[in-house]
């Protein structure tokens, strides 16, 4: 099933990116580890790509199925873990690289301050 690509740019006050996310048959989950269920940004990415949004706090999924992860990290834990694992990371808060894992946070793998309007279809 062909998935579509999206481009994600940093929002106001944000950092990093732009990221291009194009799910595949193997990497087909838009993994969401914000509090409070599936975040609107994760929903939007899933809508535009045709992939499936997934709540990481409700159930588990293998890392290799994750196309990208949506976090709402205030700047220490989640902001570093996913870039460290080379998973494209979208932070809905306008965080900059910080915390002990900040060496892994690069513009090619991380973008922050993202709102639904910062996500556009590219196919």
């Amino acid at each position: 099933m062909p998935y579509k690509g999206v481009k994600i740019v940093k929002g106001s006050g944000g950092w990093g990116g732009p990221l291009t996310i194009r799910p595949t048959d193997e990497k087909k989950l838009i993994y969401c580890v914000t509090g409070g269920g599936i975040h609107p940004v994760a929903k939007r990415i899933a809508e535009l790509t045709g992939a499936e949004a997934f709540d990481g706090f409700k159930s588990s999924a293998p890392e290799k199925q994750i196309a990208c992860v949506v976090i709402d990290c205030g700047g220490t834990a989640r902001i570093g873990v996913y870039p460290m694992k080379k998973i494209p990371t979208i932070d809905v808060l306008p965080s900059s690289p910080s915390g002990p894992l900040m060496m892994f946070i690069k513009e090619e793998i991380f973008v922050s301050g993202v709102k639904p309007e910062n996500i556009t279809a590219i196919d």
Partner: protein
Amino acid sequence: MTPGPFLEPTASLSLTPAPAHESGIKYHARVTEIGPMVQELLEAGILIFFGASAPPELREIAIVHTGDTLDGTIAPGDTIALGGTVYHVTGVGDLANKNLAELGHVVIKANGATVTELPGEISVQSTTLLIPGVGVPLIFRSLPSSPATNQSAANQPVPASPTQPALQTVSRRSPWAFLKNWLRSRQKTDRSV
């Protein structure tokens, strides 16, 4: 069969914390897991906590615990008892209470800051952070540190009070529920203690 000497029931024996409104306890949990990266993060000056719902990649970097209910809000002046160690809260980030309530997630940094550097942090006094053992309590409360919280006996975080009933309501998650019920059954059947 009489209870062994080490299990002598007394009126002051308290196996569980008193209800929050009596003891000032805002959040009560027990440590279940220490992630493999916790030591490295400790050396960088932080302890990261997550509740049981955390996925595996977040458990790697965290102290995982059983907590799931925040009663009130954590504020400067509160204490955090982690096993036998007590930290004093100096500052609370804007997201710390929300993260703690929803995800059991908090980052503790011992920098004595009254304004935290990052919104998910709780700052405590400048001191050496210690990695707790599995099974110890994690308790946020609004009283200043009391003698009981400094005890090395991590199963009695609340000072025993003569007015407390010997057998209190035990949450389903209390690790001492079995022991408490056993004691209750012994008290009913054996008056020769």
